[in-house]
């Protein structure tokens, strides 16, 4: 195995599995700073995971295997997703391939299982969150596919390695296709990570929950899995954004070296967005995603007109 491959696998696995909770931690930290509060340290998610790991749990009476296995399956989906998303254009085959549509499927599986667990515990607040999450997902998934289609038609493949290599350098930015795709993908990042204006990850009010809703009846290590999965989802979509939809260099080492800076910058950007925007009404969110989908569709057409 070559040196770049070893380094890429290390970054991919350690970054995705271990360092991903830093991303929501950083966002929270900077958001507090931007709002003039001191706020928690960026390490706060780790402290919470440690606390949850040592807590015991109480099962919900009358539930089935769906409730019991849901956190592990959601965690497994994100483990597979982390294994699927490469951090640069070096092949790091971990057995799950590198296809971007498979990634969409894995995220859908995680969503299905979480929502099914909400039905199993039959908690009204959980179901309210699941119902809204699934409603947004209908529009987010179509937008996600269109945004990815922009990058796929530009590079001629849905293989993430080819997509990262094909969008590297400055050449692709001369046509309007990729910027339009990036605009759409940016909104998808916000929706998938459950951040404002789509969702408010800080809320403690059950009535306003979306992603947090199905988590209500979990505690201890189960909840730790689910919180880790939310952090890993940040990692997956933000790495995709950084290495496909934002300018990145051609060299594989340069791609690796740039990644931490770009991820940090994106955390800052998300913190800024969360500070500037309020959460929008649930029923208005699909319109915003509709705008994003139209932008991505224009991107596909723009590429066709350009004939490149």
């Amino acid at each position, binding site marked *: 195995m070559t040196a770049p491959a070893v380094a890429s696998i290390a970054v991919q696995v350690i970054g995705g599995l271990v360092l991903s909770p830093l991303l929501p931690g950083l966002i929270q930290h900077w958001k507090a700073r931007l709002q003039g509060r001191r706020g928690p340290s960026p390490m706060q998610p780790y402290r919470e995971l440690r606390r949850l790991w040592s807590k015991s*749990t*109480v*099962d919900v*009476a*009358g539930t*089935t295997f*769906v409730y019991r*296995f849901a956190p*592990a*399956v959601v*965690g*497994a989906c994100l483990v597979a997703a982390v294994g699927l998303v490469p951090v640069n254009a070096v092949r790091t085959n971990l*057995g*799950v*391939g*590198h*296809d*971007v*549509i*498979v990634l969409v499927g*894995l995220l*859908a*599986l995680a*969503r*299905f299982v979480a*929502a*099914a667990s909400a*039905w199993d*515990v*039959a*908690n*009204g607040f959980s*179901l309210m969150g*699941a*119902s809204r999450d*699934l*409603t947004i997902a*209908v529009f*987010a*998934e*179509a*937008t996600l*596919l269109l945004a990815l289609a922009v990058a796929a*038609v530009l590079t*001629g493949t*849905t*293989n993430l*390695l*080819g997509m990262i290599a094909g969008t590297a350098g400055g050449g692709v930015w001369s046509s309007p296709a990729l910027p339009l795709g990036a605009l759409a993908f940016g909104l998808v990042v916000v929706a998938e990570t459950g951040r404002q204006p789509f969702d408010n990850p800080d809320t403690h009010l059950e009535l306003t929950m979306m992603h947090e809703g199905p988590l209500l*009846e979990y505690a201890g*290590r189960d909840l730790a*899995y689910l919180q880790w999965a939310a952090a890993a989802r940040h990692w997956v979509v933000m790495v995709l954004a950084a290495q496909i939809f934002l300018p990145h260099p051609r060299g594989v080492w340069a791609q690796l070296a740039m990644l931490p800076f770009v991820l940090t910058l994106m955390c800052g950007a998300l913190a800024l967005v969360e500070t500037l925007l309020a959460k929008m009404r649930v*029923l208005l969110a*699909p319109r915003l995603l509709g705008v994003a*989908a139209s932008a991505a*569709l224009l991107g*596909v*057409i723009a590429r*066709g007109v350009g*004939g490149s």
Partner: protein
Amino acid sequence: MSAALYWLGGGAIAAGVVVALFRAQWRRGLALQAVGATVLMVAGVATVATGHAVGAAFTSQLTPRLGVDRLSGLFLATLGLVAAPALAYSSRYLDDSFRGRLVGALTGAFVLAMAGLACARDAITFLGGWELMSLLPAVIILLYRNADAESRRSVFIYLAITHLGGVGTWVAVLLLAHAGAFGAAGVIHYGSGLQIGVAVAALIGMGTKAGVVPLHAWLPRAHPMAPAPVSALMSGVMIKLAVYAMIRVFVDWLGVLPTWFGVLVLAVGAVSCVGGVTYALFQHELKRLLALHSIENIGIIVLGLGACLVLRAHGEDVWAALALAAALLHTVNHAVFKALLFLCAGSIERSVGSLELNQLGGLLRRMPWTGAAFFVGAMAIAGLPPLNGFASEWLTLQALLHVAMSGHVGDGAAGAVALAALGATAALAVFCFVKVVGLVLLGPPRRAHVRDALEVAAPMRAAVTVLAGACIVLGLVPGLLVSRLVAIAPWSGDATVRAGLYVPSTGSLPTVGIAVVLVAATGLLTLLRGRRTAPAAPTWVCGQPVVPQLQWSSAGFTKPLRLVLEVVLRPRREIDVHTRGGVVTEVAYEGEVPNLIDERIYRPVARWSLAGAAYARRLQSGSLGTYVGYLVCLVLVVLIADRIGWLG
């Protein structure tokens, strides 16, 4: 060898049909039919695997001929795979009354009619099989429902729409036979009027039978009426045979079609899949919901077919073959999981007595076998990895993406829109089946009788378990099938044979690897979590007691989406609040999402037709003199026409 197997399978089913009529032997008859269906499946799989055609080749002559090639073999294998469990299931689902036995015998006849259609090698056998396949379910529904008012109405709508639309099939097939192109590619020229005429007629006629929007109105009415095994056969195989006919006409016989026709097929597919799943989401009766999902899945199959036509028109033969393989793979997959879901619905109806989603709940604990199989089927139809629905949706998405990649602006945009439509469809299907699974299998029982539901008899459990196993196996090794399906296209060679899907210019779908990673990670995380020591406690609902009747309903769960789509769907709802002395004593709520196409297209057409009929009825005076007058007029008109020279 293979031909003998087909005859053996068909003969066993035919013998089973006869035996099933006798009261003493009727279960053996159904078992014999199931064995025959299994033999058909084995023979079909052998044909698909080897590619050796047996029997006659296609002919434009009107002499009856039978034969099987790879495409027919695939549909026969699918038929056998669905029919064998469905027939075994029937042996406990039906009773030994004369009506029950007759339904069992007719189910076998229905299977034979479908097998005959798939084997037909001339126009007459083809049309005969086509009509029998349409008529037999109608007879079965009327028999099974004792011809009550609701079933009569459904069957009338079913027959009326499939026969009005079915004219297209007759026109297309007879035109093809007349031109000598029934089974012969290259006879009809590219872009000729005949080619376009046949293609459009076939799209209408066979599209009606397949249930594509807007010709689908019969499907959600007829399918839920039938007994569960027949519903499984109708949704699983009957509408697929219309897809078979479309593939024959569009891909095999008409040669390369103009690009616009492919885009039209794409549009039909996109509208069908989004429309079908949207209305399914707002449906609160399980069998109707499943029937609407058949429209969605036919839409996905038609999307694959449309992608194949567009790509072929662009000369991208490799990807056209893959798109066709995607459509065929989804055909097989949908047959398996839809049959599974319909059979489970039948079992639930047997044990609980109702399929109203809001009155079920908690059945996973009461009926562990049926419940677990239903859960697998729901995940498969929602297109989730690592089950079979995901593999075929993945391949279809890749094919559509390839249409979007093609250099032409308009076609590329069409491909991208279709891609987004399929993406939204997949997410809607996830939404819908989370709802179904939650309302049927999970949570507390919502009614007292659901709490005492019992698991069904062993053959019924075995049937759904076999189909659930098929969902898992087809999800693990789709590549073995796809490598054969690619060879069905008349213009392409073989693909590599591997378990997963390894396709150029994609990241590939290593199904086994994904399944292993998912299962291993789930197992590891479950082990790490350890056992629980604290006793279980009820759900926390702010200190209130948990009341099953106050659980979330089907309408409530889907309300956010209903509100978002309000502008398009125009839902109706009525709330009656009765107050007495300022105190609310009674609240009545009624809401529904009316089907727009029924309201906007079918209703006006029906109204105009009835109005027209009212005028036409005035011609029927009933007096002999008037009729003689009509005859005299007719003779005069003919004479005048002849005189002027209109008659040549």
